[in-house]
C-alpha cells in the first residue's frame, strides 16, 4: 500500500508541476488556457527526440525541454494569447481548443499516433528497496525534481522581488499597475516559466503518463481539476489538490478498478458544487 501512496505522490507532484503554470495564468490574467497540456506534450516530445534520436543523456535533455517550451510559450503569449485576455472565458476556451486541435494534428503528423517513450538511463530503472517497500527509482527522481521545483517556486514567490510583484498582480492587477508594476511583463515571464514547467513536467511524465498526440486532450481535465479544486490564489492550493488527485487516481485505479477513473471526476463535480470557487481560493472575480 505504501507503494501505491508513493506512486500517487509521484503522480500528484507531476501533475502539480505541469498544472501550476495553468493555475497562475488563471489567477493572474483570468485566462483559461486549455492548450496548457500542449506545452507539456511538446516538452515530452522534445525529450523523446533529444534522447532517442540525438542521443543526449536523459537528464541533460530535461532542462532543454524546459527552455524550449518556455521560449515557445513566450512567443505564443506575445503573438497570440495577448489578444484574447480581454475576451470572455468562453472565447478563450474556444481559442485555446483551436490551438489544441492544431497541436494534436501536428504532433500526430510529426511523431506518429502511437505512444512513444524516451529511453531512460538504466540507473533510473527498477526499484530501490527501502525498508521492505519497493520504491521505483524513476518515480523517486520525479518526486525529488518536482519537490525541488516546488520549493524553488515557493521561494521565488515569497522571497524575491519578482515574486512579490507577481503576487500583487494576482491579487489585484489594477492596483498593481497603479503601483507601477508592469503587469504585462510579469505575465509574459510567468507564462513562459509556466509553459516551461509544463514542458519539463511533460518530459518527466512521458514515462508514466504515456505520451501520444492526444495527450493535451486526455490530460486537460486533470489539469483543470487541479486548478479548479485547488483555486488560484496560492501555490499550496493546487499543490494539495494535485496530491489529492494523484493519490486518489492511483489508489482508485488499484483498489476499485471498476470505478477508478470516475473518482476524480466525481471529486471535481462535488467540490465545484460545494465551493464553486475551489477549495482554497477566494472567488475569482468575473
Amino acid at each position, binding site marked *: 500500500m505504501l507503494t501505491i501512496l508513493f506512486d500517487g505522490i509521484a503522480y500528484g507532484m507531476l501533475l502539480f508541476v505541469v498544472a501550476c503554470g495553468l493555475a497562475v495564468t488563471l489567477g493572474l490574467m483570468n485566462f483559461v488556457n486549455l492548450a496548457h497540456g500542449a506545452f507539456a506534450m511538446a516538452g515530452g516530445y522534445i525529450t523523446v527526440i533529444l534522447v532517442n534520436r540525438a542521443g543526449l543523456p536523459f537528464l541533460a535533455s530535461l532542462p532543454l525541454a524546459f527552455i524550449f517550451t518556455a521560449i515557445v510559450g513566450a*512567443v505564443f503569449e506575445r503573438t*497570440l494569447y495577448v489578444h484574447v485576455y480581454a475576451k470572455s*472565458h468562453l472565447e478563450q476556451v*474556444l481559442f485555446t481548443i483551436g*490551438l489544441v486541435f*492544431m497541436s494534436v494534428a501536428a504532433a500526430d503528423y510529426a511523431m506518429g499516433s502511437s505512444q512513444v517513450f524516451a529511453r531512460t538511463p538504466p540507473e533510473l530503472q527498477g526499484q530501490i528497496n527501502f525498508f521492505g517497500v519497493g520504491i521505483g527509482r524513476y518515480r523517486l527522481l520525479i518526486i525529488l525534481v518536482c519537490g525541488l521545483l516546488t520549493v524553488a517556486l515557493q521561494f521565488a514567490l515569497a522571497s524575491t522581488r519578482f515574486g512579490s510583484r507577481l503576487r500583487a498582480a494576482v491579487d489585484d492587477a489594477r492596483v498593481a499597475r497603479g503601483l507601477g508594476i508592469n503587469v504585462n511583463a510579469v505575465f509574459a515571464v510567468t507564462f513562459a516559466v509556466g509553459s516551461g514547467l509544463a514542458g519539463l513536467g511533460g518530459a518527466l511524465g512521458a514515462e508514466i503518463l504515456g505520451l501520444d498526440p492526444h495527450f493535451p486532450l486526455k490530460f486537460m481535465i486533470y489539469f483543470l481539476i487541479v486548478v479548479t479544486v485547488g483555486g488560484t490564489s496560492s501555490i499550496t492550493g493546487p499543490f494539495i489538490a494535485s496530491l489529492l488527485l494523484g493519490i486518489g487516481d492511483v489508489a482508485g485505479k488499484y483498489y476499485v478498478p471498476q470505478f477508478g477513473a*470516475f473518482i476524480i471526476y466525481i471529486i471535481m*463535480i462535488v467540490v*465545484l458544487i460545494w465551493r*464553486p470557487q475551489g477549495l482554497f481560493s477566494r472567488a475569482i472575480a468575473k
Partner: protein
Amino acid sequence: MSVMANPPPKPLVAKAAAHLASRARWSPLEIAFWLAALASIFLLPSKHLILTEIAILGLFAVSLDLILGYAGIVSLGHAAFFGFGAYVAGILAKYGIIKEPILAMLASGVAAAALGFVTSFLVLRGSDLTRLMVTLGVALVLREIANRLEITGGADGLQGVEMQPILGHFAFDIFGKTAYVYSLIVLFVLFLIARRIVNSPFGLSLRSVKGNPLRASAIGIHVNGRLVAVYTIAAAYAGVAGALLTQSTQFASLSVLDFERSADVMLMLIIGGTGYLYGGMIGAVLFKLVQDYLANVNPQYWQFWLGLGLVMMIMFGRVYGAVIATVIFAICMTTNLPFMHQILFTLVVVAVLGLARPDVLKLTSAITERAVAVQKKLKARFTRQPKGS
C-alpha cells in the same frame, strides 16, 4: 395599487402590438431555408447520408443555442445529452424494448430531459468557468460509464442495432432516404416548437436572464427556475438528436460522448451565430461541408485546419477569421508542400498576424465600413423613400 388613469392612445397600442408581432413573423429567408431543405429530399438523392448528418447536427446545435444563445449558459459538455440519447435509443432498439422508432426517439428525448433536469442544478451556481468545468466533468463521467458498462458495448460501442420500419411502414433504406426525411421532419417539428418558445413570454424572460440576471430577479423572475426549464428542454433536444444518429446509422459509438463533439457543436454556433436559432443549423451545414471537404483532401490532419479556423475566428471575428483561415489553407494546398512545411508556414503566418493584429483589425473594419456604406447606397436605390436611420 394604481389603476390606469388614462387608457393609452390607440395608435400607440397598435404600434406596440405591431412591433411585437413583427419579431415572430416568418421572414422570406426563413421560408426559403425550409423550402430548400424540403427540395433537397428530391434534388439531392445521392447526398442523403450526409444531409441526415447535417440535420442531426443542426438539431444538436439548436439545442445548444437554446442554453447558450438564449439563456447564456456556457457548456463544454453538451455532448453528454447527445450521447445519452444516442445510447438510450440504441439500447431500446437492440433489446427490443421499444420497437417503433418514433416512440423510441421520443423516449430517448424524455430520458435525456431527465438527465438534464437532474444535472441542471450544477450549472446554476458559480461563474462561467465553473460551468465549463462542471459540464465537462459530467460529460466525461458519462463517457466513462459508457466505456465500462456491458449494456453499452464498452469501448467498441453499441452494435447490432436493428431498426424497425417507422410507423411499421417506412423501412430504413441503405441510401438513407427514410432516415433523412425522418430526421428532417423531426428537426422541423422541434424547430417549430423552439421557435414558439423563444418568441413567448418565457423566451423573453430567458433573454432577460441572459442579459442581466440581477435585474431579472429584481422584477420577480425566478431565474433558477427558468434556467432549469430551458436546460431540461435543451437536453431533450440534444437527446433526440443523438437518438436520430443511432437510428439512422444503426450504431452508437463511444465518440458520441467525446469532448470533440461538444467542441464541434460550439464551433457550429460560432460559425452560424447564436441567439436566432438558425445559427446552429447554418453552422451545421457549413461545418459538415468544410469537415467533409477537409477530410477528403487531407485525411488525417483535417483537425489542424479546423483548429486554425477556430483560432482565426476568435482573433479576427467570424467572417474575416474564416476568410483568413481559408486563404492560408488554400495557399498550403496549392503549393503542395509537405505537411510539416505547411504547419511551420501556418505557424509563422499566425504569429505574424498576431503581432500585426491591430493593423489587421483596422483593415477589416475599414472593409466592413465600406461594405455597409455600399449596402446602404444599394438599399436607397431600390427603395422609394429613403428612411433616415
